[in-house]
């Protein structure tokens, strides 16, 4: 007999007054719960169902689409479904990584929202048994002319820094972009990368009937209740009242819990472990039981409480941070306790693995919840909503009249906060701790050494919402291709990716179409580029007062640098080095930074992307880097070729004398168009010929632009001088933009 808590509404009240609707459940979902239980659920039970069946936990609107992603490959040891995916990197080692969003909490409480986003993703990594070695992020903010946007930006960055720094995990990379569309709904996606030895790989699984279930971490409070549901709703002016749904992070506790958990795992003391992330105790217990095909009984009165008189509903739904749930065997009890005690932590025996297939909740000996595990985890009704092409979609490319003050446009682009130097951001992150950061933030990808080897991991995040808005399928392809290109430019072989799909409400057909098309495009690129998706996160309902963000899939890519000597950065290196542009250029203004800066609009069609051309480019650039022929490499992205050249000059602190090749394009088109599948490389004069011949034979378009040298970036076309700017002046514009913006 399941008893209800006296202070809570009765099952009859829940039914009659549709109290489940306030928890985000539909009538149909409620009816299914009643059918599963054979009775009306109690308040605790309907709360548990509501978070398990929220978009955040059930992926009900995206599950069918996510099946389109390739998720296997010769190196994939674990695909989606666990805390994080795992990819083999040889030598008995593997890399573990995942990205996750904390958009809604960050919108209303930027510091804690961002900080706890970082905390959650770190736990996903170490719960696999992996040592976290790097953090990255992908951030989107609104128009920085808005004081609230600047406040959000400043505090999100401080929140990420405060948490990651104190945990001793370097934040090595990421991206930040600004666009009006994110004004009420910023994006905060955090990614963590870890290393593990194959033999230590853990799963969140509740094995062995009769085995004890332990809780470790700080006590449970009333924070973050219904957080998963909150994440699955649109934001509005009333959202600030949801502030209690935002958790407060304690990175010091996280550091202790991390060290202790890695310690018990290394000693082989746990059978299964999972963090209490979204939907807290509910999700961790139900998922662990589900994966083992078992049941679990929890004794909620034993759960450490921060406040007296907490109810089962509150204990099950709280999202208090830094908590872990694990299963061990009865005979290891003392050994486990000793390890945690060393770190000043208590672990509490809160339940037992059962063979019932039910999640049974007890409070002071009374049963207060009894729900089928399978029903909670697997039986959430999948929704395949209608998709409809939005009215704004066009097949007409944009044409603009010629712009002739090229230097002026270049400076305007370099001052755009999306393109400008992010030093103001990353200087707040300890990107050096663990003394393995070979390429710090500011290059195409960060490179982190694998300790005690001569190899490294290259990693980056990428996603351009402007392209995706104009054509989600092509935009999705570009997100994957650009991330892989960045890894290649840094000397790494792309291995696999994690994705974070940030979209609007799937219940609106035009927004669902964006999601569907973007996934299709990403899946195409993953297949051709041989980079499977090993895990990720879906964040829907990113809307503010009914207005959606730019559809923004973020790709977190990790690649393997087989030899540290292959590590390549964007800056030009030596006088007389020869500069080449790889890839053809077309007139492609749609979604470009040029369009945003000069015309302050978003229209037309995004740059096309031929995946075979992209694959060929990447393969051969990597081969030439590995052959030792390339001194610097930089992919051409936002702002086009002119910005790429300026970044090579600024990073290398050296100019160049370059010429636009004879072609049918106008100079402004050649300089600022954002055609994909292009890379600027430089090489010593000795290797120039062999590089050129290699690319020509491989069918990769290559053109020599000129040579590195001097203090100015000079670009000409025939007799005409297009740009002649001191590198120092370019740097001043590029470096000064964000500090200047933040002084307002």
């Amino acid at each position: 007999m399941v008893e209800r808590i006296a202070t809570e509404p009765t099952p009859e009240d829940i039914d009659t007054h549709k109290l489940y609707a306030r928890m985000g459940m539909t009538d149909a979902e409620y009816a299914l719960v009643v059918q599963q239980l054979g009775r009306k659920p109690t308040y605790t039970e309907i709360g548990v169902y509501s978070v398990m069946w929220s978009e955040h936990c059930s992926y009900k609107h995206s599950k069918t689409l996510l099946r389109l992603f390739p998720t296997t490959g010769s190196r994939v040891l674990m695909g989606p479904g666990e805390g994080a995916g795992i990819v083999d990197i040889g030598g008995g080692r593997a890399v573990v990584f995942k990205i996750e969003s904390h958009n809604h909490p960050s919108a209303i409480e930027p510091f804690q929202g961002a900080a706890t986003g970082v905390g959650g993703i770190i736990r996903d990594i170490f719960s696999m048994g992996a040592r976290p070695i790097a953090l990255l992020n992908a951030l989107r903010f609104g128009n920085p002319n808005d004081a609230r946007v600047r406040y959000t930006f400043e505090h999100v960055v401080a929140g990420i820094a405060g948490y990651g720094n104190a945990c001793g995990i370097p934040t090595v990379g990421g991206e930040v972009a600004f666009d009006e569309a994110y004004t009420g709904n910023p994006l905060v996606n955090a990614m963590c990368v870890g290393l593990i030895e194959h033999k230590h790989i853990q799963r969140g699984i509740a094995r062995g009937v009769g085995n004890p279930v332990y809780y470790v971490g700080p006590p449970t409070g009333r924070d973050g209740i219904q957080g998963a549901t909150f994440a699955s709703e649109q934001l509005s002016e009333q959202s600030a009242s949801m502030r209690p749904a935002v958790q407060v992070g304690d990175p010091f506790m996280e550091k202790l819990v991390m060290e202790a958990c890695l310690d018990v795992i290394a000693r082989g003391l746990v059978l299964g472990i999972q963090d209490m992330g979204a939907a807290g105790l509910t999700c961790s217990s139900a998922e662990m039981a589900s994966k083992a095909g078992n049941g679990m009984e929890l004794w909620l009165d034993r759960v450490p409480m921060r406040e007296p008189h907490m109810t089962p509903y509150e204990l099950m739904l709280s999202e208090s941070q830094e908590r872990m749930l694990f299963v061990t065997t009865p005979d290891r009890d003392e050994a486990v306790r000793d390890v945690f005690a060393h770190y000043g932590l208590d672990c509490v025996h809160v339940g037992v693995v059962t063979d019932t297939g039910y999640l049974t909740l007890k409070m002071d000996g009374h049963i207060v919840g009894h729900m089928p595990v399978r029903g909670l985890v697997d039986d959430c009704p999948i929704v395949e909503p209608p998709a409809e092409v939005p009215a704004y979609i066009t097949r007409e490319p944009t044409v603009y009249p010629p712009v002739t003050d090229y230097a002026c446009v270049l400076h305007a682009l370099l001052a755009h906060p999306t393109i400008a130097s992010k030093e103001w951001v990353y200087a707040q992150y300890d990107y050096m701790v663990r003394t393995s950061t070979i390429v710090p933030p500011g290059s195409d990808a960060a490179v982190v050494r694998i300790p005690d080897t001569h190899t490294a991991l290259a990693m980056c995040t990428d996603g351009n919402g402007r392209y995706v808005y104009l054509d989600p399928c092509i935009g999705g392809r570009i997100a994957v291709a650009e991330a892989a290109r960045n890894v290649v430019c840094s000397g790494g072989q792309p291995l696999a990716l994690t994705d974070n799909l940030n979209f609007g409400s799937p219940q609106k057909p035009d927004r669902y179409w964006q999601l569907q098309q973007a996934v299709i495009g990403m899946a195409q690129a993953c297949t051709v580029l041989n980079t499977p998706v090993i895990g990720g996160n879906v964040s829907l309902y990113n809307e503010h007062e009914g207005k959606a963000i730019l559809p923004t899939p973020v790709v977190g890519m990790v690649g393997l640098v087989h030899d540290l000597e292959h590590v390549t950065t964007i800056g030009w290196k030596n006088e007389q080095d020869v500069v080449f542009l790889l890839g053809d250029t077309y007139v492609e203004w749609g979604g470009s930074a040029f369009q945003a800066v000069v015309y302050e609009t978003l229209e037309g069609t995004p740059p096309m992307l031929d995946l075979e051309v992209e694959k060929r480019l990447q393969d051969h650039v990597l081969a030439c880097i590995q052959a030792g022929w390339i001194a610097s490499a930089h992919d051409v992205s936002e702002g086009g070729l002119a910005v790429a050249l300026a970044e090579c000059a600024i990073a290398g602190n050296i100019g160049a004398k370059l010429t636009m090749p004879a072609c049918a394009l106008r100079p402004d088109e050649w300089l600022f168009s954002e055609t994909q599948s292009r890379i600027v490389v430089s090489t010593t004069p000795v290797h120039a010929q062999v590089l050129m011949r290699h690319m020509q034979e491989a069918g990769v378009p290559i053109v020599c632009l000129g040579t590195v040298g001097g203090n100015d970036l000079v670009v000409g076309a025939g007799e005409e001088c297009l740009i002649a700017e001191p590198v120092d002046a370019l740097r001043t514009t590029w470096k000064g933009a964000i500090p200047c913006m933040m002084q307002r």
Partner: protein
Amino acid sequence: MTRKRAAVVSFPGSNCDEDCVRALRTAMDADRVWHTARSLDAYDAIVLPGGFSYGDYLRAGAIARFSPVIEAVHAAAERGVPIIGICNGFQILLECGLLPGTMRKNVSRKFVCAPTTLVVARTDTVFTKAYDRLERIRIPIAHGEGNYYCDEETLRRIQHQIVFRYEDNPNGSVDNIAGIVNAAGNVLGMMPHPERAVDRWLGSTDGVRLMVALAAV
């Protein structure tokens, strides 16, 4: 000659302990020692590493000074054992009173991680004898509370104890102070991280000579 051995003390929340052990091992043996240790008698040198001991809650280093190991650190300081506090370790040495002065928040009010150039002000200490006087060395910083402060009288008194100065002051420290020693010269506190400058892949190897000097004491 027996190989020298250093203790790297780990407090709850220390996070540069392993980096220090790895850097020291290029020159000498090194062990991580948990903060509950009561004796450090077995060690020829002691390093208090960077990080966020006790989360830096209350004030950086303020809680760590009550750790059991601190008594042993005091005893070792008395005996003349060379002791280095790096970053959070420097803050702990200030809180224990083994070095004069205090730390304020950076003038920017923000955490700052960046390569910096230091000017070596003294080369007659056990730590810096491998550097040239007024040599410029590249050692990175990473801190939120590295703005060294002492009153004017103390500053006059400790002029001779200043070991490293920033070439381009990143945090507001008085007299550009990046590192100081005690009057006896065996306790060094510095905000920059020498253990992060020991490998060409990390961008600088200027920290190596400090490790080597420590091993030769």
